[in-house]
């Protein structure tokens, strides 16, 4: 067959690579700030107590920045580089490539602006509000369209295993994102999740787990299968194994999500299903890890010399550790210790810093010399980066494992007389302070490593000349179907029934979902415990402030049916208690205590003072202060719309109630304000009810005082009966 000339687009690879490094540094710095806030809370409260950088808003910014900006751009970098070379063709459309690039950066910028402002859906790794969700969907389709079309015009018949991983990534992420993001807008940047309570939790963790699986794992396995053999100049250890573990992995991963909800109000059978699939996942995960490491058999001497391969080896090792640990953590007995603690934070950072981070660094050191046709500026600097990064990971994760394990055990510790050894939650937090400081140090030196890389790459770039297009001659190994002159491009797609099927499925799934979900979601709200009533207007507003400030990042609302939990927090949580929760706020981490039964435990004035300056009431508390809540007026302009939207979602507010909502809100606010004034007036005799009744803090207090109280009024027997009837 005749040779043809192909021009690989390197510019798009360069763009994404620069974006990866830039956002990586930013995302990690934001993470460092969050870590320092936990290590030195007093400093931040006293000198940097600004609402826009408060921990609850900074944490989602960190997670979104490293997942979607750092890792996301790295995926595009690697895919745009390897796909062209594996298929021996340029990307199908330059327009789509650059639309993909700029669109994605725009999404990231909007996240950087909106998250600190408090616009959040509160669902982990899906915090971005609805307009950005739509933009993400569009950009993802642009990426997928370009990738599929490139595959259709390929010059190699065989699809290398890496491409299978890319395809699975695209299809699954698309479906998960769409399903988890069903929400009804209240205003331009505020929406309520379509689902409520248990349903919302289940969909969220179905998404959340698969975000890890199909955003942080499958694309990286694809990249691993391209870059590790290329960098080692060795074929993958077993191509057969790569195929087998690919199919096993994608078939198993989808079902593992419920392991994030063990001991919660999710039905037991669903929890067990998640556990079983999680355990099975060890096999395909380790298949990939071993296949990657064994690719280096016989060339371990190269690892000694090449920084790129060193990074890959540690990345694969971290992947192996994280994927062994994951199934272990999904065992109920281990989960009862580790869940809600820093152990989980350590676990994700072995994956994030180790697997994703190290693979990305290796990829960058591999790519830039190729893109600039020059040797890397300094191998020894790259080696230094490697050792610093490895040390950083260890210093980050070991203290956090220690902290998580210690705290988990402290929560469970009983005295011989049956009382809790550490009844004061705060004492289990202050014990962790040294670990939080060590963790920050680990993070700091990891970032120093990344800065070394940025410097090294900058020097490399300066000494070389950029190859905008790599012009090569290739021999196609695929028969080009006779293309009639003037034939329209979509005829080509029509000849490929399977691809057409995939495309149609995506369309159908979106359409079908729009029809099915509303009925289902609204229907399921009918099951409820009769004593559980909708939130009052003031509580709705307070709940939205709770969401805005990211309280869910540190406080769970889920008492597990374990003795040490019920002893500490009270009656365990029932599914029926959350039917009006749009979205659910169960949380996944307890840096502070659980709040599911907070209502009525403390006085209104306690909350008032505590929110303005937590350590004044709880000495040693690491909770951020929220003084602005007492200064800012509660905005009630959207209240009517909120009531209407919630009613539409199945919350039984009477018809026309939205008109009375505001006066109800004011009545309740005045009452709380009176309570607060009565208690604090000794010190501040000049404060009037009208001074504080309209402030945000009053709404938040109303919400906190409501938490878990509905069910308290009910005799326990009756409640259990009602729950079991469902």
């Amino acid at each position, binding site marked *: 067959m005749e040779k*043809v*000339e*192909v*021009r690989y687009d390197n510019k798009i690879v360069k763009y994404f690579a620069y974006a990866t490094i830039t956002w990586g540094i930013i995302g990690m710095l934001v993470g460092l700030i969050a870590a320092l806030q936990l290590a030195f809370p007093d400093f931040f409260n006293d000198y940097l107590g600004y609402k826009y950088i408060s921990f609850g808003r900074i944490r989602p910014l960190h997670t979104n920045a490293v997942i979607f900006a750092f890792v996301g751009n790295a995926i595009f970098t690697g895919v745009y580089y390897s796909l062209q*070379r*594996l298929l*021996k*063709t340029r990307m*199908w459309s330059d327009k789509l490539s650059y639309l993909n690039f700029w669109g994605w950066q725009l999404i990231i910028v909007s996240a950087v602006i909106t998250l600190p402002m408090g616009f959040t859906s509160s669902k982990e790794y899906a915090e971005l509000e609805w307009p950005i969700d739509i933009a993400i969907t569009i950009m993802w389709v642009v990426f997928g369209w370009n990738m599929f079309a490139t595959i259709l*015009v390929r010059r190699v018949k*065989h*699809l*290398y*295993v890496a491409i*299978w991983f890319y*395809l699975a990534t695209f*299809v*699954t992420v698309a*479906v998960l994102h769409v*399903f988890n993001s069903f929400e009804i807008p209240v205003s331009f940047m505020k929406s309520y999740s379509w*689902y409520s309570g*248990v*349903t919302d939790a*289940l*969909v969220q963790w179905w998404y959340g787990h698969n975000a890890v699986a199909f955003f942080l794992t499958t694309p990286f396995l694809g990249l691993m299968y*391209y870059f590790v*053999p*290329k960098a080692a*100049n*060795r*074929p*993958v250890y*077993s*191509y*057969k194994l790569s*195929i087998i573990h690919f*199919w096993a992995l*994608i*078939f198993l991963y*989808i*079902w593992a999500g419920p392991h994030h909800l063990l001991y919660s109000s999710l*039905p037991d059978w*669903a929890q067990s299903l998640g556990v079983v699939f999680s355990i099975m996942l060890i096999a395909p995960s380790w298949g990939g890890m071993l296949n990657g490491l064994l690719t280096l058999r016989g060339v371990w001497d190269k690892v000694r010399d090449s920084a790129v391969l060193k990074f890959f080896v540690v990345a694969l090792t971290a992947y192996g550790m994280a994927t062994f640990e994951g199934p272990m953590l999904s065992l109920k007995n281990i989960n009862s210790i580790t869940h809600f603690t820093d152990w989980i934070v350590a676990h994700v950072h072995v994956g994030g810093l180790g697997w994703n981070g190290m693979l990305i660094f290796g990829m960058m050191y591999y790519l830039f010399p190729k893109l600039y046709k020059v040797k890397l500026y300094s191998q020894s600097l790259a080696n230094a980066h490697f050792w610093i990064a490895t040390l950083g990971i260890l210093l980050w994760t070991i203290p956090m494992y220690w902290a998580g394990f210690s705290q988990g055990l402290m929560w469970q510790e009983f005295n011989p007389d049956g009382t809790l050894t550490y009844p004061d939650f705060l004492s289990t937090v202050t014990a962790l302070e040294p670990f939080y400081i060590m963790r920050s140090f680990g993070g700091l030196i990891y970032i120093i490593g990344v800065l070394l890389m940025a410097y090294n790459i900058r020097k490399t770039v300066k000494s070389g000349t950029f190859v905008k297009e*790599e*012009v*090569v*001659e*290739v021999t196609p190994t695929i028969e080009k179907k006779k293309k009639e002159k003037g034939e329209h491009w979509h005829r080509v797609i029509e000849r490929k029934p*399977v691809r057409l*099927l*995939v495309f149609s*499925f995506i369309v159908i*799934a979106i359409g079908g*979902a729009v029809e*099915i*979900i509303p009925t*289902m*979601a609204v*229907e*399921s709200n009918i099951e409820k415990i009769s004593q559980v009533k909708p939130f009052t207007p003031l509580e709705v507003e307070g709940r939205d402030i709770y969401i805005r400030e990211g309280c869910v990042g540190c406080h769970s609302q889920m008492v597990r049916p374990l003795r040490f939990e019920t002893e500490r927090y009270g009656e365990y949580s029932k599914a029926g208690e959350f039917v009006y929760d749009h979205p659910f706020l169960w949380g996944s981490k307890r840096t502070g205590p659980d709040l599911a039964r907070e209502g009525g435990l403390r006085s209104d004035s306690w909350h008032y003072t505590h929110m303005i300056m937590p350590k004044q009431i709880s000495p040693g508390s690491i909770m951020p202060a929220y003084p602005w809540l007492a200064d800012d007026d509660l905005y009630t302009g959207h209240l009517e719309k909120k009531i209407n939207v919630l009613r539409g979602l199945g919350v039984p507010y009477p018809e026309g109630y939205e008109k009375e909502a505001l006066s109800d809100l004011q009545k309740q606010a005045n009452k709380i304000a009176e309570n607060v004034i009565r208690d604090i007036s000794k010190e501040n005799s000049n404060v009037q009810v009208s001074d504080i009744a309209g402030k945000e803090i009053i709404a938040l207090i109303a919400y906190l005082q409501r938490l878990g109280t509905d069910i308290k009024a009910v005799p326990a027997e009756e409640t259990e009966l009602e729950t079991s009837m469902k």
Partner: protein
Amino acid sequence: MEIMFVMLLVSLLLALIFLVSFIWANKTGQYDDDVTPGMRILYDDEEVKKKPNKEKPNKE
């Protein structure tokens, strides 16, 4: 908990796409050869050293 049925349906549909693509891959001979694909990617494409052609032969 009707959402379970939706999720099962979606998960099964995803699994179905994967199954169909798997069958497609097998039928079209994607997995007939499990040795050379691993090797083939190691060969870099032949670079065109001469001044690049003005016309674009790779127009799709």
